[in-house]
Every structure is written in C-alpha cells, then in structure tokens.
C-alpha cells in the first residue's frame, strides 16, 4: 500500500492525537476533581504541551518534505474531502456539547434535589469542577479529531 503525501500528513495528525491522549490526558484525568487554580503545575504542563506540539509537527513535516520533495497542488478533490470530514467533526462536536450541557444541567438539578432531601454527604460529593470540564472537553476534542482524521484518510483512499 503506497501512501501519498497528504495521506501521510493525516497519519501524522492521528498519531499526534493518540500520543497526546496517552501522555497528557492522564494529568487532566488525575486533576479533574480540582479547580484550575489548584491544579499542580498547570502552567508548566501547558508550556510542555505547546513545546512538544511545536517540536513534533516541525520534525514530522520536515521529514515529510524531505521524503516527498515534489509539491502536490491542493485541488477541488482535497477541498471536497476536507469539507466532508470537517463537517462530520463539527456535527460530532456540536452533538457532544449538546449532550454535555444536558449532563451538566441534570447534575445541577440532582444536586438541588439532594439538598432538598437534606442528604448533605451526597450533596457535597456531587461536584462538577472546572478541572472536570476541561478534562471532558479535551477528551472530546481528541476523540473528534481522531474520528475526523480517520474519515479524511478513508476518503483519500476511496474517493
């Protein structure tokens, strides 16, 4: 199976998303109970993510440019494939946010109900922190990014 330059660049994106999920998401998972201010080393982690991302993409695209010296023009087929895959990503993101907002609303409602019943222990355990929201949104972004890129790759192979 020979892959084109565009297909390789999609694979680079997929690998990045998976590596990001494996290396950086555990940090946000461990801190999802905390608020952003109380997260240990959040600024350091953010800087680490930015530096790693820049280094990864610089190296990956440099290797790609060396391997495929010929420039491939961007044409209407690329635009069609991109519009289809980004549309899928956008729809998934919108749908997931809709579900997330519903989840947050139901959680607040349940918390109020627990307050009314006087169950203080459960009431205190029912927390939705901004760390949790950040973790959820990051998981969502990684998941949607992988789905979008896989669909894009599939279209490049089949269209």
């Amino acid at each position, binding site marked *: 199976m020979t892959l*084109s330059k*565009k297909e390789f660049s999609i694979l680079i994106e997929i690998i990045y998303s998976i590596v990001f999920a494996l290396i950086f998401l555990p940090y946000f998972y461990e801190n999802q109970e905390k608020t952003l201010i109380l997260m240990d080393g959040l600024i350091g982690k953010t800087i680490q993510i930015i530096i790693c991302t820049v280094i990864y993409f610089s190296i990956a695209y440099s290797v790609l440019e060396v391997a495929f010296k010929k420039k*491939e*023009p961007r*044409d*209407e*087929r*690329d635009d*069609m494939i991109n519009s289809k895959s980004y549309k899928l990503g956008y729809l998934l993101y919108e749908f997931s946010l809709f579900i997330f907002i519903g989840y947050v609303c139901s959680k607040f409602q349940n918390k109020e109900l627990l307050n009314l019943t006087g169950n203080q222990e459960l009431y205190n355990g029912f927390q939705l922190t901004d760390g949790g929201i950040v973790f959820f949104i990051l998981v969502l972004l990684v998941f949607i990014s992988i789905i979008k890129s896989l669909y894009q790759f599939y279209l*490049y192979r*089949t*269209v």
Partner: protein
Amino acid sequence: MILKNTLKEVRQKKGLTQEELGANVGVSRQTIISIERYRYKPTLELAMKIAQRLNIKIDKLFYFE
C-alpha cells in the same frame, strides 16, 4: 445513470501521463486517477479544462451510462 468518461483512453492516445495532465490542469495525480476510476466526479470547470487540454469535446469525454 452513472457518469463515466473516456479520460484514460484519450489521455493515453495523446501520450500524456496522469502527472502531466494533472500539472496542466492544476490538479494532483491522485485526482486524475480518481476521475479515471469513476470515483470522483470533477466540477464543470475542471472537466472543461481537461477537455480543452485533450482537445476533445466535453460530451465525448464525459457521458452517462
């Protein structure tokens, strides 16, 4: 009705490679391959460009079957 084409035969008759034709009309080799395999339906603009480059009427190049 499926939109088919005689692109491969006409191109080969004119002695052009997929890469050359793609470069002449401003698309990639993969796009020419996709059109020849009936996987991708080009826009009218691209179809006109290809027909013009191959010096053939567009209805001889693209047809319904």
